[in-house]
């Protein structure tokens, strides 16, 4: 018996044809086919027999085909789209990483802030910083070109553990390494790219399990739609929801509270009124968090009021703190003429 036939020397497995000119699909000598196997005849009903005959025919087509399909070769290089926690953890093991948390409702301008930062970096428009590296360049390019969008109406439910190639936008972290011009210090930032629905469900139902990683963030950007704050009809709602979000953040990060920056968009519509600031600050005082307001214009409609990217660099500076003032290593001690410096040395002590 050879392979799938009871007859020694059967040629079907090798060349796909029977040397005895029998049909391999119906041949009684084939193992598992034909009436002699007993398996088919034990089942009543013509329909089943037809089905079995089809199956036999189908299997006959694959006779002689490789037993196992060849494995698909994976890409030669890892992708640089948004990063999963595994990659970020690996990165954090080798150098200090400044984690930034970004929260904000849908359409508040989170993506615009990220895109604006990327455009400033890629065009060399930051005054105090230069680009050094990014492990998620494709991720930045994708969101800047709106090449990938959240699943229409069904935003992803959690951060993917491993980077996957997909047509959908995957929630994850973006990495950016910048060099500060003033002191040459290199700072690694991780910035989350998450759907606004996650913030909304944090406010509404306190769902914080998928935002656990933000507990380790040094600075939290809470992006608020500046239009909604300026519009009388939507102002109270925006302030109240912000207050509630701050409450959730306070609860979520009570062990190690981050510096919170409330990022108000649409700075190109003018400076935020003091009355609005006062109402926002009243909300901040209800929470045991250090909160500051920063106004930005990620993309300005009116370039006369302020340029696109306004405030983004200040946001970056505020997130890491300013460079320490460089102390003069050897201060000048040239004595003034007639000061009798030698006699007066240390007289003042």
């Amino acid at each position: 018996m050879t392979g799938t036939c009871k007859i020694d020397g059967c040629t079907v497995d090798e060349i796909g044809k029977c040397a005895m000119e029998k049909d391999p699909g119906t041949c009684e000598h084939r193992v598992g086919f034909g009436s002699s196997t007993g398996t088919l005849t034990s089942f009543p009903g013509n329909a089943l027999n037809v089905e079995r005959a089809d199956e036999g025919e189908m299997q006959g087509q694959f006779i002689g085909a490789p037993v196992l399909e060849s494995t698909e070769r994976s890409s030669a290089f890892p992708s640089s789209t948004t990063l999963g926690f595994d990659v970020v953890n690996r990165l954090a093991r080798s150098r200090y990483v400044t984690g930034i948390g970004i929260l904000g409702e849908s359409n508040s301008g989170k993506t615009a802030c990220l895109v604006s930062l990327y455009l400033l970096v890629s065009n060399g428009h930051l005054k105090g910083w230069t680009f050094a590296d990014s492990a998620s360049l494709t991720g930045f390019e994708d969101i800047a070109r709106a090449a990938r969008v959240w699943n229409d109406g069904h935003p992803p439910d959690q951060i993917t553990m491993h980077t996957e190639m997909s047509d959908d936008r995957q929630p994850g972290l973006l990495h950016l390494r910048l060099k500060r011009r003033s002191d040459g210090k290199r700072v690694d930032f991780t910035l989350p790219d998450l759907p606004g629905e996650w913030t909304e469900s944090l406010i509404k139902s306190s769902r914080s399990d998928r935002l656990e990683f933000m507990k380790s963030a040094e600075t939290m950007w809470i992006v608020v739609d500046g239009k909604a704050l300026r519009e009388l009809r939507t102002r109270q709602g925006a302030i109240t929801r912000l207050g509630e979000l701050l409450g959730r953040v306070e609860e979520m990060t009570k062990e190690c509270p981050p510096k919170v920056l409330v990022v108000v968009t649409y700075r190109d519509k003018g400076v935020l009124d003091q009355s609005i600031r006062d109402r926002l600050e009243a909300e901040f005082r209800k929470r045991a968090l250090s909160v500051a307001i920063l106004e930005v214009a990620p993309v300005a409609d009116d370039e006369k009021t302020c340029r696109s990217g306004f405030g983004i660099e200040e946001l970056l500076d505020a997130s890491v703190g300013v460079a320490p003032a460089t102390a003069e290593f050897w201060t000048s001690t040239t004595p003034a003429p007639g000061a009798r410096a030698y006699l007066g040395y240390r007289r003042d002590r």
Partner: protein
Amino acid sequence: MSASVVVLGGPDSGKSNYIARLWTALREKKGELVEAAQPTNLEFVLEASEHLFQGQFIQRSEQTEDRRDFEVTVGSRSNGKQAKIVVPDISGELWRQAVTDLDVSPELLEDMRAASGALLFLREGSDQNVQPLDWITGKKYLSKVKVTADEGIPTQVMLCELIRFLELTLARRPDGAKPRLAVVVSAWDLVGADVFEKGPIAYLESEYPMLAGRLDDVSNLDVQVFGLSVVGGNLDEEHFKKIFLETGIDGNGWVAIRAADTGMWTKDTDLTQPVAWAIGL
């Protein structure tokens, strides 16, 4: 000893013109590297350099294959060491595709892993260079307005990704030192005197800020930046072309190198310098 270098760059970045000119420079035997033995297969370099001999740059569209190899045994004039080098000319489209697909052929991957030196090309003034996204286009994308002319991945992003691929693949040098990356800005004769004086690094900082920042931050590659003019001028200018054709290819062309002592950028007629540094005999 054998060594291989990887030659990378986008379309129309000057790779083929340099490989053709490299062969003629090796033949001339006046540079740091000289041809130690006549190459067995001259078909590719002969065909490529024929364009230069006739006073024309090799155009992007004239490359018919994805990959052609130039193999030659070279010797160092300073220490007499010899090495058989393989310089593959791989089309810029293939590199661009590699960045999109995150993949290269298994053979090329093996070559990258075997090499401990690479040459990364970009060309001043090429119409194939893709600028980074600007605010106007960025705004359109953000407001979901359809952008009709999407030029694709910007050149500086593509080059940063190619550097990442090199970091992941290039082998350490035989003495255990870091692999070397020579960044070559071709058509350097087209820049003005002030830009030349500041040098190609300052040029990259101004025109390709991300690439310049990345090169400054690379820690596991040794990087050196060169300016390059394969024939020392623009062959599209009739006057220059006439003089070039009359004098011949030898002695024409230069590499801009920063002098170690003065820090000044100077023209060196030794066109083998980028490869000589990358393989480091």
